[in-house]
């Protein structure tokens, strides 16, 4: 049992550790500023929290160890573990329901996932290990320093390669010279500063392998929140309007445009409700660590998140729920009992406070396939603010 009381020690350690990676960054896209480094470091928080939840058996994730920086294993407090559990399983559910055919009779159609600021996320490995050969194309976008770390982990860990079905002997994998980009038929790691994405640049150069025709799910798991409101909106618009916008051939009316577009969904996981005492404290505590949640005030409520999805043209459906709601309503009684028995969670009031300040929002447009997001229709959303 390490000392969870002083998580700031980890921050110090991380600060030193990151220095090693800067060599890659100099040549890579997006020269990180001090603030960027802090944001990149949040991935470490997430992976340490995931490792803690895995070790205590909240989550079953055989790939967590390989993607957690060694020496940073820390046992988190029970409420953090439960939060990591709820967040991970909730996004898993949205992803799985998107990927699975809605009905057994429905034809299996290849689908695409684009994960923004994916960092050390293990979802790709968990998905691919159960889907060989993969019927999906999976993209991860992050700062070069983070993608290089991940590619290094994949290169040195056979179990990760096996999960991906990668076979270096068959020459189906290419890694960039800097070691920060990876391309294979169904898995791509893109070293990219999201703020540099622009409609002016060629997609095949910036994000090679992205297929404009596939039903696609965008995921931002605590990523866009670190950008300025303008930048965050631009990143989403880059995908909704440029990459998956009206195809150039479609010159007819709006209806035709709609129908020619690939189905597109967006899942957001973000803090909300910054204006109550807990929220204010959260903002100031994170600011003390150099972390600014720039869009927090703009998308401060469930309703604001739904409106955001609507404004981005995800017109077929917009929904949101906070983590407290998801724990109460999405998790079965049986599973709740299992999770509750893992650790004594004494801090019920604190749990509710914390869990009400994070939400998952999801929205989609059907485009040319009304069944693509049919699997989301039965997922319970939270009404109200």
């Amino acid at each position, binding site marked *: 049992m390490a000392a969870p009381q002083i*998580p700031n020690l980890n921050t110090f350690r991380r600060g030193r550790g990151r220095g090693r990676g800067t060599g890659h960054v100099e040549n890579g896209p997006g020269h990180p500023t001090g603030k960027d480094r802090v944001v990149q470091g949040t991935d470490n928080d997430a992976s340490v929290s995931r490792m803690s939840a895995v070790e205590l058996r909240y989550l079953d994730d055989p790939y967590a160890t390989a993607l957690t920086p060694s020496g940073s294993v820390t046992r*988190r407090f029970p409420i953090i573990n439960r939060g990591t559990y709820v967040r991970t399983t909730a996004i898993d559910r949205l992803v799985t329901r998107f990927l699975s055919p809605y009905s057994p009779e429905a034809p299996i159609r290849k689908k695409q996932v684009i994960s923004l600021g994916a960092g050390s996320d293990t979802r790709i490995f968990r998905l691919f290990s159960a889907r060989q050969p993969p019927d999906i194309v999976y993209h991860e976008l992050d700062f070069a320093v983070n993608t290089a770390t991940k590619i290094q982990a994949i290169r040195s860990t056979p179990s990760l390669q096996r999960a991906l079905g990668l076979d270096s002997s068959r020459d189906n994998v290419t890694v960039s010279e800097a070691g920060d980009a990876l391309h294979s038929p169904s898995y791509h790691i893109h070293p990219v500063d999201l703020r540099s994405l622009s409609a002016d640049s060629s997609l095949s150069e910036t994000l090679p392998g992205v297929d404009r025709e596939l039903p696609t799910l965008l995921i931002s798991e*605590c990523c866009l929140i670190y950008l300025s409101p303008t930048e965050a909106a631009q990143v989403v618009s880059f995908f909704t309007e440029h990459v998956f916008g009206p195809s150039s051939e479609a010159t007819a009316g709006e209806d035709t445009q709609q129908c020619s577009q690939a189905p597109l969904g967006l899942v957001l996981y973000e803090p909300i409700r910054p204006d109550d005492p807990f929220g204010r*404290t959260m903002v100031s505590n994170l600011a003390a660590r150099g*972390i600014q949640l720039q869009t927090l005030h703009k998308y401060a409520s469930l309703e604001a998140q739904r409106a955001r999805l609507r404004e981005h043209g995800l017109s077929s459906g917009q929904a949101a729920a906070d983590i407290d709601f998801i724990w109460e309503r999405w998790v079965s009684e049986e599973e709740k009992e299992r999770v509750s028995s893992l650790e004594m969670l004494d801090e019920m009031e604190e749990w509710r406070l914390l869990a009400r300040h994070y939400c998952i929002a999801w929205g989609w447009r059907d485009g040319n396939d009304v069944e693509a997001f049919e699997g989301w229709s039965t997922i319970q959303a939270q009404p109200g603010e």
Partner: protein
Amino acid sequence: MSDLDRAIEQLRACRLIPESQVRELCYKARELLIEEGNVVSVDAPVTICGDIHGQFHDLMELFRVGGDVPDTNYLFMGDFVDRGFYSLESFLLLLCLKVRYPDRITLIRGNHESRQITTVYGFYDECIRKYGSANVWRYCCEVFDYLALGAIVLGASSGLEPTTSYTNDTTQSTMPIDDGELETEVLNSQGEVTFSTYRPRQRSSSDTSTDSRAISPPRDISAPPGQATPSRTGAPGTGASGDGNGSAQTSRTGAVLCVHGGLSPLIDSVDKIRLIDRKQEVPHEGAMCDLLWSDPDEIEGWGLSPRGAGFLFGSDIVKQFNHLNGLSLVARAHQLVMEGYKEMFDGGIVTVWSAPNYCYRCGNVAAILELGEDASNGGTVARSNGEYGRSNGVVDANTVVSPGRRYRVFEAAAQDTRGMPAKKPVADYFL
């Protein structure tokens, strides 16, 4: 200056004392605590405090707001350790004060004063980190086993002496007295009154919950509320001894039961608490566990607790328990309340929470609860309103008047000005 006084001085400066001294302190504390019953009797005036959770600098703020030991008589309702960064400094200071001024500070056990919980929530790790071994943790856990499970406050005054505001003290004191007796008052950390309620002295209100009060005699004119001694101005030492004998019967207000968590379906009388063999680790179930783990809730009867230990209990349970035991109030801690205190069930139970900005993350304020001394029973004349009620054939604990309650609300200590170490506490978030 004795070693103990030196240790107190050192701990007040947030500096630890040597392991050998901790060992000695814990030994003395056990000798003292072993003499206490499961339910300690405490005479008003007393200041009741909730969870501290190792937030040492906020404990110092609590003493600034509530007065120092031994000037103020304190009752801490457990959860001294875990979560905060200074569980050792906080608990050892409280323990030193207990050994130094045993009649001026009462410590009862919280659910975190347990071997099992402290290994999950931080105190164990802190001991290892600060002392290099588990020895001090073991000494402390042995003390935990001897802490009382509850306390009964006797002789509290039904009315409060209104606090004179610093800003306009000429108008404040006279104004609302005619309408009734000051029942509750909330003060901010600057000592300014932010809220108060008055108890009607005589009324035939249609409010059923206070009907029974209407038939109880009005407050004796020989003891106008203006003469009640507020706890703040009470001389050091008052209430520590003297009128303690049987004051539950002679006081106009009912006794106040203080426990960390709440009630238990296995406990229908305070006397049953006295029968528990408490000198052990907190069990996973049973009466002792419930007293430390249960929570009041807006339900009927008993319910399962989401905490996995203890129970939820509704207003009917509290009303019945208070009635049967001649209590006017249950004071408990255990649950974070954003405003620092929360009265429930027509004032039958109150939660007091004394850890501001809990875990450096929650943004809540904290509170302490002051109960004043009933001046009318300070002398030899023992009025007996409780018996008056009974002579009417109304053996109804509702005739027992609740004590006047003064809540002092305070915020987290400004850490930068208090010589905090450079390592600022960092709260975890999902990032």
